[in-house]
């Protein structure tokens, strides 16, 4: 093993605002992508722990919680609800995109305040749809949670 020393700040801390949520249906090989996620979209990874006989907290796994605030709100015509219902009944991957780049089937809209990219990918989850009104419009809130045993295959 070699030493790991994270010492320098320059070119080590990147801006990667949350940009998009994408779903990949593994059987149909179809992508569904939603860009322009609104503020309040976030991800959170918390640990599930248990105290051992020495008083230390042992990590058993992690709970991933994703929230995406979706601005596209012409629900009667844009087909989003029907599509998400179909995705929910199938096997799919959920990609939570941060920063710019790494897109497969389209060129994403331009964005600012980024200098790197990263994505979170989870599987075996379900999407929960909620709706709320903000100022002059309604918007959709997509939520997904997933338990993962370790953090080795979640950040890409």
């Amino acid at each position, binding site marked *: 093993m070699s030493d790991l020393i994270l010492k320098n700040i320059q070119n080590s801390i990147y801006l990667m605002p949350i940009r998009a949520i994408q779903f990949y249906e593994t059987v149909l090989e179809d992508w569904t992508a939603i860009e322009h996620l609104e503020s309040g979209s976030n991800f959170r990874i918390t640990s*599930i722990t*248990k*105290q*051992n*006989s020495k008083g230390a907290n*042992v*990590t*058993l*796994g992690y709970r991933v919680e994703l929230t995406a605030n979706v601005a596209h709100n012409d629900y009667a015509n844009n087909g989003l609800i029907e599509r998400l219902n179909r995705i929910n009944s199938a096997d799919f991957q959920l990609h939570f995109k941060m920063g710019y780049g790494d897109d497969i089937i389209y060129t994403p809209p331009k964005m600012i305040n980024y200098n790197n990219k990263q994505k979170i990918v989870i599987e075996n989850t379900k999407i929960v749809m909620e709706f709320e009104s903000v100022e002059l419009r309604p918007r959709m809130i997509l939520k997904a949670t997933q*338990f993962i*045993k370790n953090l080795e295959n979640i950040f890409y």
Partner: protein
Amino acid sequence: MSYIALMFSATELFELTYNPALTDSEQRLYDTITPKATLVNRTVDEGVLLSGRRYSHLIHKHFEWDITISADELNTSDVEFIENFLDSPFKYISTHNGTSWSNYIQVISNSGRTPIDYIEGLEDLPEITLNLRKVLSE
């Protein structure tokens, strides 16, 4: 760190010295989340004489261990190993006190369903609690 070793055999052991060379299918070590303390379970004969005097005679006592192996140490092969351990006619444990291993101690387990629970109902978080009792009395 203190560990507990679970070991099983198809035949009774005559050499009880801890053997670190056993394979994963015969012996596994666990740093259980519960204390690895040896508990003493006493069986007494007690009653009241015709004179009214109460008595309590120690008949025998057995050592016991309550151990919980949680999801941080349990993968599918560990669950299979513990199932085999419980099925085995000759089960042994050895405890590590921080410097050395004890001799193997023959134990028995409770009957019934495999004592496995799933934390928060998650199949990836199994937890097994064993009550192991020494075969020989003290």
